[in-house]
C-alpha cells in the first residue's frame, strides 16, 4: 500500500514536471534580444568626426578608390576659391601700389656723377642668357598660373567660355612645358652666383643706411648688395619650392595621395603669388627704378660711375684686376 502510494506520487510528480516543462515557453529563443548587434551601426557623421577621411577596401586595383569620403576637399575648395585669391590680390596689387607710390615719391635713382662713358663688364654672356631664359619663362609661368586662379572670373566675360577654355588649355601646356627651362635656369643661377650671395657685414651696413634708395646714403657694396642677395635667395628657394610642388602636381599621385596633392597645390599657389609680387619689385628696380641698371643685364656692361655709386667695392676689385676699360683710371696701388 505504502509502496503503491510512493509509485503513484512519483508518477504524479513526473507528470507535473513534464507538464510544467511543456507549458513553459522557451524564454530567450522566442523573444527579441534586448541587444541588437547591428544597432551599433556607425553613422556617417560619427565616422567623419573620428577620422580625417573614411576609407576601407575596394576590389579595384587603383588605391585611390579605397577612400570613401575625404571632407578635406571642401576646405581645399575654400582655400583655393577664397583664401588664395585674397592673398594674391592683396600681395600683387599691394606691391604695384607700393611701387607706384615709391616712384612718385623717390623717383628714378640717378647716376649722381653723370655717365662717364667708360664701362665695366658686369655680367657675361652666359649669365645674361641664363637670366633672360629664366625671366621669360617666369613671365609666362606667372601669367598662366594667375589664369588658373583668377582667369575664369576676369576673362570669361570678355571672351566667352569656349575661347577662354581654349586659352586656358594652351596656358596649361605652356605652364607645364616651360617649367623645365625655368627650373634649369634657377639651378644654373644658383650655381653661377652662389659665391657672391652669402650675407656679410657689408650687407648689415647697407641695410642700415637704407641701401641708397631710402634716403640718400651711399653705403658700399660688393658685386651684389643686400637687396640683390635677398632676391637671389627668394628666386632660389622660392623657385625651388615652386618647382618641387609643381612637379608633384604635374605627375599626380606618383609620390603622394590626395591630401599631399592638396598641400602641394596650396604651397605652389602661395609661393607663386609671393614670387610674383617680389619679382615685380625686382623688375621695377631693374628698369625704371634706377638709371643705368638695365644695361647690366641687357648689354652686360655698366657705366663706371654707376658702379662707383652702387657697387664701389666691386668696382675697386675690377679695377685692381685691370678689367675696367678706356680712359685714365687711377689704379689702387
Amino acid at each position, binding site marked *: 500500500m505504502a509502496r503503491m502510494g510512493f509509485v503513484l506520487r512519483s508518477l504524479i510528480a513526473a507528470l507535473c514536471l513534464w507538464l510544467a516543462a511543456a507549458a513553459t515557453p522557451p524564454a530567450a529563443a522566442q523573444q527579441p534580444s534586448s541587444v*541588437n*548587434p*547591428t*544597432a*551599433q*551601426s*556607425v*553613422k*556617417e*557623421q560619427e*565616422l*567623419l568626426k573620428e577620422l580625417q577621411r*573614411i*576609407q*576601407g*577596401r*575596394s*576590389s*579595384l586595383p*587603383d588605391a*585611390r*578608390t*579605397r*577612400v*570613401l*569620403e*575625404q*571632407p578635406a*576637399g*571642401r576646405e*581645399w*575648395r575654400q582655400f*583655393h*576659391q577664397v583664401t588664395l585669391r585674397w592673398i594674391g590680390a592683396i600681395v600683387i596689387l599691394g606691391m604695384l601700389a607700393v611701387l607706384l607710390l615709391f616712384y612718385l615719391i623717390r623717383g628714378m635713382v640717378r647716376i649722381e656723377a653723370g655717365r662717364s662713358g667708360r664701362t665695366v663688364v658686369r655680367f657675361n654672356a652666359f649669365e645674361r642668357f641664363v637670366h633672360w631664359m629664366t625671366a621669360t619663362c617666369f613671365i609666362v609661368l606667372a601669367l598662366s598660373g594667375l*589664369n*588658373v*586662379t583668377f*582667369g*575664369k572670373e576676369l576673362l*570669361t566675360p570678355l571672351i566667352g*567660355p*569656349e575661347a*577662354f*577654355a581654349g586659352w*586656358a*588649355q594652351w596656358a*596649361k*601646356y605652356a605652364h*607645364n*612645358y616651360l617649367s623645365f627651362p625655368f627650373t634649369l635656369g634657377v639651378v644654373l643661377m644658383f650655381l653661377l652666383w652662389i659665391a657672391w650671395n652669402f650675407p656679410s657685414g657689408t650687407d648689415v651696413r647697407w641695410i642700415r643706411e637704407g641701401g641708397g634708395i631710402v634716403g640718400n646714403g651711399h653705403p658700399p657694396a660688393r658685386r651684389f648688395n643686400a637687396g640683390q642677395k635677398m632676391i637671389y635667395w627668394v628666386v632660389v628657394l622660392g623657385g625651388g619650392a615652386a618647382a618641387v610642388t609643381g612637379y608633384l*602636381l*604635374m*605627375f*599626380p599621385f606618383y609620390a603622394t595621395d*590626395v591630401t599631399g*596633392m*592638396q598641400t602641394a*597645390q596650396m604651397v605652389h599657389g602661395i609661393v607663386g603669388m609671393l614670387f610674383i609680387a617680389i619679382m615685380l619689385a625686382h623688375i621695377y628696380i631693374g628698369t625704371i627704378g634706377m638709371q643705368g641698371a638695365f644695361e647690366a643685364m641687357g648689354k652686360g656692361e655698366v657705366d663706371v660711375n654707376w658702379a662707383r655709386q652702387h657697387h664701389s667695392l666691386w668696382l675697386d676689385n675690377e679695377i685692381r684686376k685691370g678689367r675696367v676699360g678706356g680712359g685714365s683710371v687711377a689704379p689702387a696701388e
Partner: protein
Amino acid sequence: MARMKFLCDADRCIECNACVTACKNEHDIPWGINRRRVVTINDGKPGERSVSMACMHCTDAPCAAVCPVNCFYTTADGVVLHSKDLCIGCGYCFYACPFGAPQYPKVGNFGSRGKMDKCTYCAGGPETDLSAAEYGSRENGQFTGYGSNRLAEGKLPLCAEMCSTKSLLAGDGEIIAQIYKERVVRRGYTSGAWGWQTAYRETIAS
C-alpha cells in the same frame, strides 16, 4: 521638378559590384576609369559595411566651384554634368570632391591627366541628347563623350536598376528618402544615408 539623388543603403549592400559592372558596361568605360566603386569599411570585422559610391551630384558642387574653366553645369533635375570640350585636365575637381568622383585617363603629356570623366547619372553631357557624339568614341585609344543617356529616355541610372539587393537607390530625392525611411522603421536601426549630409546638406531618419 524632381531633384535626382543617389542613396546607398549601407545596411543592405552585399558588395556584389553589380552596380560597378553595369556602369562600366553600359558606357563602355575604358580600363582604369572607375565611375562607380564599392568601398568596404571594417572588412572582415564586426560592423562591416559596404557602400557603393560614384558622383553624388551635390547641391553646392565643390567640383564646379574650383574648376578654372567652369566646365560644369547643373541640370534642372539637379544632375551635375560637365563638358569635356572645355575641360583642361587640371585635376582640381578631384582635389575638391569629397567623394573622389572625377576620374582621368592617363593619356596626357608625361602620362598625366586627360579629360575628366565621371558618373553622369546616366544623363550624358552637353551634346544633343542620344546622339552618337554624346555617347562618344572608344576607338584608337580615345575616350570621348559621356556614355549613354538613360534619363532622356525616361529611365533611371543603370547601377541602381541592377542593384541585386536594391541597396543603391536612384531617383527623385523625395521618393528614395521615403523608401529609406520605411526601411529604417521596419529594421529599427540605421547607418544613415551615407554622403547625404555632405552632398545635399540633409539627413534622413538619423
